[in-house]
């Protein structure tokens, strides 16, 4: 029996999450198939990338012009068609925004519950996932012939990329799932508004709280340039209209696990800590020695960021 993984990609590039989902899948089955659903322009290149992930035994690729929009309904319908070919025990995807909309949709179509955002696999039907923003873990048992899971990618090490490639099979697309007048049109798409590394895959992330302020931002940017770091923000910063919600860290934003997280001017509300507490090393710079962030930081500096950060930049 095999596992089907829905590949995630953007602009013809496979997302870093997919090799991590492959690692998770290999804990369950040795036969790991990756399904690439995309526009005609990107099908071949994405299939080739997926085929070189270590542990992948087969790649299925489906291309159609309307798959460019990556609508939930179409991705679910295509996946259903592949599952119907038989042989699958699990269907997996990362718990990205895309995974969060596609997998439950598919679950309801197949009349099965799913386990979302798993961080640990304990047996072929027992999965652990964080709830209450990581304040608790629940172990859930999922029954059923074909089990649907979404995986928190940064909880599993990415599988390596190798030179050897798995076979690629091209499948015919199913018709569009939605028909006029009830179709969905994707009329505009914007990529990340920053040229820095993406938050969920950056090796180093700098988090900015209200304590940084408009005046402090130039220092933060300089530090980020020096470290090739991504910049995230706390909810307060988004609420003040100082940053777009795409940079929000925490329970209601992005959940990250970089090698190094540097929290600047962030006090550390429960919801924020939930999003960053799986970072390998946490550094906090805050003028308030009582700030809750210091309770989980590996290293803290109590002081004015306008002095500490320039000093740091000078030393790096």
């Amino acid at each position, binding site marked *: 029996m095999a596992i089907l993984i829905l590949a995630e990609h953007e602009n013809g590039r496979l997302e870093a999450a997919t090799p991590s989902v492959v690692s998770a899948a290999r804990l369950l089955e040795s036969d790991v198939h990756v399904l690439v659903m995309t526009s005609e322009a990107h099908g071949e290149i994405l299939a080739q990338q997926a085929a070189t992930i270590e542990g992948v035994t087969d790649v299925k690729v489906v291309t159609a012009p309307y798959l460019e929009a990556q609508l939930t309904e179409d991705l679910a319908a295509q996946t259903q068609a592949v599952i119907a070919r038989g042989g699958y025990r699990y269907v997996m995807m990362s718990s990205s925004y895309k995974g969060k909309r596609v997998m439950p949709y598919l679950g309801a179509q197949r009349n099965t519950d799913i386990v979302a955002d798993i961080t640990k696999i304990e047996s072929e039907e027992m999965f652990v996932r*964080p709830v209450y*923003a990581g304040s608790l873990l629940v172990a859930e048992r999922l029954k059923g012939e074909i089990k649907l899971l979404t995986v928190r990618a940064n909880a599993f090490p990415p599988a390596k990329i190798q030179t050897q490639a798995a076979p690629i099979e091209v499948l015919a697309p199913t018709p569009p799932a939605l028909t006029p007048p*009830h179709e969905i049109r*994707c009329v*505009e798409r914007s990529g990340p508004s920053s040229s820095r590394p993406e938050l969920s895959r950056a090796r180093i992330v700098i988090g900015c709280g209200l304590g940084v302020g408009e005046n402090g931002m130039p220092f933060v940017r300089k530090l980020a340039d020096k470290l090739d770091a991504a910049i995230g923000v706390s909810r307060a910063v*988004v609420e003040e209209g100082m940053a777009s919600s795409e940079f929000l860290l925490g329970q209601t934003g992005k959940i990250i696990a970089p090698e190094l997280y540097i929290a600047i001017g962030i006090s550390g509300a429960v919801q924020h800590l939930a999003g960053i507490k799986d970072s390998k090393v946490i550094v906090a710079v805050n003028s308030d020695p009582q700030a809750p962030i210091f309770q989980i930081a590996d290293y*803290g*500096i109590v002081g004015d960021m306008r002095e500490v950060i320039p000093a740091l930049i000078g030393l790096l």
Partner: protein
Amino acid sequence: MKILVPIKRVIDPSFKVRLKPDHSGLDMTYMKMVMNPYDEAALETALQFREQGKATQVLTVSCGTEESVETLRTTLAMGADEALFVETRQAMTPLVVARLLKAVAVREECALVLIGRQGMGSDGNQVGPMLASLLGWPFVPFAETLTLEGEKVRARCKTDHGFETLETTLPTLVSTELRLAVPRYVSMPNLMKAKKRKIPSVAAEALGVDMDMNVAIVQLRAPPERRRGMVLPDAATLVQRLRTDTQTV
């Protein structure tokens, strides 16, 4: 045009949840329950559509035990026209909730469902897509802005890399981000008025849906605690520590 807004009762997200010492469940001492903040944003948007004459009625619905009635009362105080309580003592998975909500949406002839993208706490992100799937309606996920002109729906939605603008037509299900709308303040007179309203209830069984589930919570666990580290005197010591102890810079 009737809008359905499903409502979940959750632990106030500013509280830190803890397990009971024997790990049998959550320690609910001193915990405060509130309306799921994502659902509040959905309800506020629905109310604005009705006030702009784009919808005729806003119906809220909550599934579960009797405590949910109190949360539904808050929705009436905010301005919902009607509330419906779907009563069951049975544990429910997101799929069971979606089946119940589908029955309500069909019975009440709603054309738009606005639903919080996740329950704060369970953090599942499941009922919205499941309900869209069961209804067979176009699914507009993670909306940060939403406009409704006649039958036309347009939303700016969050993606993994930024945003996309989706357009569709009613009937539609939209899952909402917190930033979609700031919920209005509930005034004391409105709260008093809502207290006098009778909230109709229906037994889950009476909706004729399958209450079977294929996932169950087996165990609750406390995550490993992160230890408090050390406070360093200056940037130089920090850089030295990061270089020698962690090799991260």
